């Protein structure tokens, strides 16, 4: 194993930094003319509304703020820095730097969303064309990029389903959304937020796939729709997916395909062929827009022609010479997010697709498939690691493993291993969404931007750690050891007397900070 140690800067909380009187930046001064020809600021603020005491944020000079946040950035293990393939369902892929250059352009960064459309023809062209491309990729007929994340995309789909049934005067009767346990939790939570009752199909314990018989039993006149991920968080492609759709359709429901993780599907299989009415993609995953510490993101929502009237406004249209913002859509559900959404993700995705072309996209998909199956081969050779569900089945983008055997043998579980592998310079892996019906799970996704050597090395880390669990379990359980910090007290996080969401709360609950005050 390569020697590794994370940077340890031991930075204080910024609230303890600086010195009274210091400043990080100076503000434009007010011209003498303006100074004179206007009144005192307090004249423009109702008396009661004037702030009495300045906020207690720190006073710090610029070099120290820069130093602090540069250090904190180093203490963050971004995908660009590590073999980040342990983060299943996240598609931690290379985000090309050229796309970052493009989004920094003032022709994008300094555009106001309400500018006259004549002055935004460039970005409208990008949106319009990308819309056509993603329609081709999915087989849908129109997309909206307004949802600022996958979950908001799913919520949008739930709202579209709601609207559809409302227009058909089918509410409140059709008030049930069916999903599967291995579909992303948002496929349950978002329609629930929209007012639906959720019915969850459990996986068959042999195949790992949701049971079609269970589905048949679940549908009824209450069925509003199906919201389902495929492949689910097991990486197993549901080959009966079109049957699922058919059953829902026959029951009068709509089907929404969660394609957040579509990395293995480009050019291979589409929502359309499976019969779906709508789908969503996470542009910040398969389409290479970086994850940005959890956003900005985009859950692009696409629908069949019949449903386009319900899409959020505006939609970008093209009259053959100019692009327009179409706001005049009376049956639209309105707005899911302010303005047009996080179009920076679309700009990057457009550029990414243009760098790929149809063959490149197919190579993306094929390579993800090869990579995960190669990783499965490597991992299943490790004592203590088992692949959940049928061994012989191909996985498409990710795979769910279990460390139950390891745990039974050594008492070292998946949380311990996740915490230990960071000592080798890789990101903690994603265990799995709850509930853990696969015990002690973990869920890697070696997308196309990892090399064979990356995969070998990552598998080696797992092997090494499993071995260590047998020879030296305490090392694993007390991990991390080479990271920025040591193991934390997690109990405090759920105790109202201990948790602290702000420094002011912390001070109140604990008294003054225990750290020495050494600001450098």
């Amino acid at each position, binding site marked *: 194993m390569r020697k590794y140690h994370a940077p340890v800067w031991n930075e204080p*909380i910024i609230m303890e930094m600086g010195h009274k009187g210091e400043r990080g930046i100076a503000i434009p001064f007010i011209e003498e003319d303006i100074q004179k020809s206007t009144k005192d600021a307090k004249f423009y603020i109702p008396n009661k509304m004037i702030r009495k005491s300045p906020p207690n944020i720190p006073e710090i000079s610029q070099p120290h703020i820069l130093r602090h946040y540069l250090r904190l950035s180093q203490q963050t293990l971004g995908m660009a820095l590590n073999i980040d393939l342990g983060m299943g369902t996240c598609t931690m892929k290379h985000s090309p730097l050229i796309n970052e250059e493009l989004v*920094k352009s003032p022709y994008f960064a*300094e555009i106001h969303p309400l500018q006259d459309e004549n002055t935004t023809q460039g970005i409208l062209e990008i949106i319009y064309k990308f819309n056509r491309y993603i329609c081709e990729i999915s087989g849908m007929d129109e997309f909206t990029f307004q949802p600022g*994340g996958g*979950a908001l995309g799913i919520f949008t789909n739930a709202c579209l389903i709601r609207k559809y049934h409302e227009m058909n005067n089918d509410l409140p009767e059709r008030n049930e959304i069916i999903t599967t346990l291995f579909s992303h939790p948002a496929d349950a939570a978002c329609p629930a937020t929209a007012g639906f009752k959720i019915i969850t199909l459990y996986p068959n314990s042999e195949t790992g796939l949701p049971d079609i018989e269970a589905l048949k039993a679940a549908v009824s006149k209450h069925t509003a729709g199906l919201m389902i991920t495929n492949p689910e968080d097991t990486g197993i492609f549901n080959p009966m997916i079109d049957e699922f759709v058919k059953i829902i359709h026959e029951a009068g429901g709509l089907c929404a395909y969660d394609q957040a993780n579509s990395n293995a599907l480009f050019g291979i299989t589409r929502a359309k062929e499976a019969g779906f009415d709508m789908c969503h993609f996470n542009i910040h995953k398969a389409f290479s827009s970086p994850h*940005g510490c959890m956003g900005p993101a985009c859950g692009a929502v696409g629908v069949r022609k019949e449903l386009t009237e319900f899409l959020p406004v505006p939609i970008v249209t093209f009259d053959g010479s100019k692009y327009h913002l179409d706001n005049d859509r009376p049956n639209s559900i309105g707005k899911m997010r302010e303005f047009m959404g996080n179009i920076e993700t679309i700009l990057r995705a457009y550029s990414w697709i243009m760098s790929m072309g149809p063959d490149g996209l197919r190579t993306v998909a094929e390579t993800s498939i090869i990579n995960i199956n190669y990783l499965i081969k490597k991992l299943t050779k490790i004592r203590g690691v088992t692949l959940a569900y049928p061994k012989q089945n191909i996985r498409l983008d990710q795979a769910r493993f279990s460390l139950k055997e390891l745990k039974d043998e050594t008492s070292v579980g998946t949380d311990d291993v996740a915490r230990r592998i960071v000592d080798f310079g890789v990101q903690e892996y994603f265990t799995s969404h709850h509930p853990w019906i696969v015990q002690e799970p973990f869920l890697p996704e070696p997308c196309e931007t990892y090399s*064979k050597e990356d995969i070998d090395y990552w598998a080696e880390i797992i092997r090494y750690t499993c071995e260590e669990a047998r020879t030296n379990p305490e090392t694993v359980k007390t991990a991390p050891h080479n990271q920025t910090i040591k193991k934390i007290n997690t109990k405090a996080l759920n105790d109202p007397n201990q948790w602290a969401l702000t420094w002011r709360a912390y001070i109140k609950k604990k008294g003054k900070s225990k*750290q020495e005050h050494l600001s450098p």
Partner: protein
Amino acid sequence: MTKKIEHTHPYIPNSVLEVRQEMLRDIGFENIQEILNTIPKKLRLNRSLNLPDPLPSEFDLKKHVSEILSKNKSCTEYLNFLGAGCWQHHVPAVVDEIAHRSEFVTAYAGNTYSDLGKWQTFFEFQSMMGELLEMDAVSLPTFDWGTAASFAIRMASRMNIKKEVLIPKIISPGRLSIIKNFCNTGSLSGNIDIKLIDYDPETGLIDLQDLENKLSSNTSSVYIENPSYLGTIESQGDEIARLTHNNGAELIVGIDPISLGLLTPPINYGGDIVCGEIQPLGIHMNYGGGVGGFIATRDEPRYIAEYPTHLVSITDTIDGGFGFGYCTHDRTLYAVREEGKDFTGTTVGLWTIAAAVYMALLGPNGIKEIGHTIIKRSHYAEKILSEINGIETLFSPYFFKEFVVNFDSSGKTVNDVNKFLLDHKIFGGKEIVKDFPELGQSSLYCVTEIHNQEDITRLAETLNQAIK
């Protein structure tokens, strides 16, 4: 090089043919088609995607995309007075440096140990927002102000099991539309009715009488904004709070945090849940992609239990240092799926980092000074515009950053005026004619610290011509 479909793509190491073949063999396949056959044929796309030929060369790609983008006119070439929920402020270079660090740009949901820097920055965001707001509990931001307001309203409704929210008419129609999508589940479960409250067309203040009339035992919460969508400063916060609380409802206040150097935070007049927009705090407009919404409350378990968003808490490490983790994670969809409080997901992590750096750069003096610069410059603009024959400005003197300009007496429409301005490389204010017909031919102008006297004078002179 000659044009041929390069099999090896720079982004895809294992696109090297020999490597692929070797790996395929390792997993027991002759070729990729064998694998794909495991997907039923009818589900497979039996043709190539119909997409443009690629531009694998980075130079060609950059040229292609840049040429499209350059069809835009940016607010650095044009003088911009559009605000209305996305505002042009100066983004300090240090903010850009940090927000563009590859580590931050490419990290995601990494945990306590590998992403400490991210966690600490998030906690610092919450902590500095807490000081601006004088509130002890602040969450990680959600998608935008609209979503933040929606979640706040739903939080209140879960807390007091009531199903009605009162919202002033002086609100952004976009934001209101979002709130409707979240609250109006129609005949499905969990519906929260929205009732609109009148405002005084002279002052922009909320009509207390109308509020009082509409408040009832059904009222779960009252949602107000300060400054309002039209820039007005609401001075009756304490009275609104009294009425709201007397009815057993929660007062939710939406704010623009860049006003907080001058304006008192809502907790001081009785705000229970505070939300708003972080975009002014060092985030580029990005064609509207720069927005993000925060939520804050008192640090009471009954509030904490209802947040749908992530809450970062500080905690101790076994060796006495600091660490961080999610507070009451079991609230969320990640733990309990549809039993979670609403939902969260990937939101605006990078903007959270930018906002943290921005607040640190400003400090208590900077936040006050920028408030001063904005209020003086915007009132200066309002003053000199109001002196133009044919122009009236509304809601003076109590507004911050944005104000309404009315063209009724000029006989021109906002449309005419904005077209004229555009020809002179000025983005005039947002037309609000359709959304606020009661205000006639009116337009919402935004003036921030970036508009100097020369800019304002240029606007006034061009407007003067426009309405001639």
